[in-house]
């Protein structure tokens, strides 16, 4: 029986050989948009191979939505072309800033959770949505710092940005867990606040524990039990969502990576919900 809610894996170079020779039965892949922005040469050849067999969704790391810099329109042009080329049903990026005054720090950076900053984010997201013209989801970060000028919790900020911009969530359950441990808040309370009908997709991943007990989002380990338990709670609250495993370092075979993603089925109890998600149409594309 075809499953309604799909399970995908992040498409990464070390897995190309295995994927493009064995063509495993994978529901969908997620690409890091920046890796294919040029739409040329070897990256395009590999993108074409993936597109010949699999649905793709796009996940970006450089939209720099939280920055006081203007949106980079040349970058957005390329994203739009790539979205059109791949036929991705939706596009996601992060609730963060990545640079300022034209300098790119190539990291997903946090900022104080204030109403003004939420409005700032929402305005940028609206511009992106108007321009890109496919559903857009914003992803919560793994955070290693909290700020004294914050006026609200991370989840209140996240929800406010989604509400003000009209965009969707790209909910990273591992990030919820990592931030909850690092900042000392309840991850369940975070999940309870999510408007599940607006969730495009959920990420799961592994992280690393530091000597002091804090966590770093490394995507180089299996998903830990605590994150799977949280995933199950999210599933019970929501009634279902598409799931994507991110694995970015310390690679194992694609077969094993895919098997790790498939573990998600063990934490998907059958739950009946009456609501019809707002974003169901865009999510349906994968189904």
């Amino acid at each position: 029986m075809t499953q309604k809610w799909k399970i995908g894996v992040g498409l990464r170079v070390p897995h190309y050989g295995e994927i493009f020779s064995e063509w495993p039965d994978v529901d969908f892949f997620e690409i890091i948009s920046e890796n294919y922005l040029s739409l040329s040469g070897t990256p395009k050849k590999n993108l074409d191979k993936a597109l010949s067999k699999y649905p793709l969704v796009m996940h970006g790391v450089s939209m720099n939505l939280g920055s006081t810099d203007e949106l980079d329109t040349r970058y957005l042009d390329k994203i739009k072309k790539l979205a059109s080329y791949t036929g991705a049903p939706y596009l996601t990026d992060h609730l963060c800033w990545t640079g300022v005054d034209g300098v790119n720090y190539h990291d997903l950076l946090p900022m104080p959770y204030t109403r003004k900053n939420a409005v700032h984010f929402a305005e940028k997201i609206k511009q992106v949505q108007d321009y890109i013209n496919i559903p857009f989801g914003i992803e919560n970060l793994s955070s290693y710092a909290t700020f004294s000028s914050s006026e609200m919790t991370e989840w209140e900020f996240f929800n406010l940005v989604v509400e003000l911009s009209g965009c969707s969530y790209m909910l990273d359950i591992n990030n919820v867990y990592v931030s909850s441990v690092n900042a000392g808040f309840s991850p369940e309370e975070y999940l309870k606040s999510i408007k599940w009908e607006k969730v495009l997709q959920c990420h799961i991943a592994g992280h690393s524990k530091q000597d002091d007990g804090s966590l770093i989002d490394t995507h180089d380990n299996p998903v830990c039990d605590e994150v799977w338990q949280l995933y199950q709670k999210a599933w019970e609250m929501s009634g279902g969502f598409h799931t994507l495993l991110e694995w970015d370092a310390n690679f194992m075979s694609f077969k094993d990576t895919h098997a790790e993603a498939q573990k998600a089925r063990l934490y998907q109890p059958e739950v009946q919900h009456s609501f019809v998600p707002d974003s169901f149409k865009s999510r349906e594309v994968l189904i």
Partner: protein
Amino acid sequence: MSQEKLHRFQNMFGNTLSTPFSFLTGEATCQTELYDEDIKTEVQMTPFKNAVQSLTVYNQQYWYRLFKIVQDSFPLLNKLIGPWQLNQLTTSYVKAHPSSSPVLDTLGAELPEYIQMGSWTEGLYPDAAYTKRDLKLLYQAAELENIYNELLYLANVNEMSDSVVSGNPRIKPQVKLYAENWPLLSLRNELDQVKEGIKDIEYKQSHWAICKQNNNIGFYHLATTAYKLMKEIIRFGGLNEGIEHIESVLSVSELKEAEVHLEQWCYQWGKRGWFY
């Protein structure tokens, strides 16, 4: 938080996370004393870390990410001078050329020229005492690796069943010319056998055309005269224009060589699919 305050916050945070490591103790260490004082006040204590420790996470992530991308993009350079020296070079280079691109892979685009300038060698730990010859060798190694990096995004050059030299052909932009004074290309192709150190690499000049064929990098040795002619064809935008200007760059003997071999070279280049 107003836009002005947010901008100030992002400047403080950005300056702090990009604070260079100190290499002076023989270990790469965060210089937390240089972190912005205001951002230290803004960052709160968490269950595990104080403000400085939290900022250190971002400081380390920033530099380790950049070190890795440069090591991966310049594997020969990494072998020749070792990661310790390369990380110091990267630190100096990134401070002089901070990334403005959303794509991290292009970070090292200006690294060859920066290497040649030599200012990065001041304060290296331990003092590497690179000579002018060493800097030129490292420049050529970095230039070669940038050709590799560039070719990743370029199309294959398809061999032709017969040579195409009609009209006034141009050299395809995906054919890259490379001149070296040391056998760096062969070292790049045998990375596993390269040992750290550049003093013992013997002088050996050669010229190459490098392009991608069937998704593999192909290398074609060029006679010096052929290399100069190709360079002029690329510079002036066509075979005829290249030939017109060739006299100013060739010696008398090279001119004679060009006259003898021109037809054969053009036939070969056309057959390899280098013309369009």
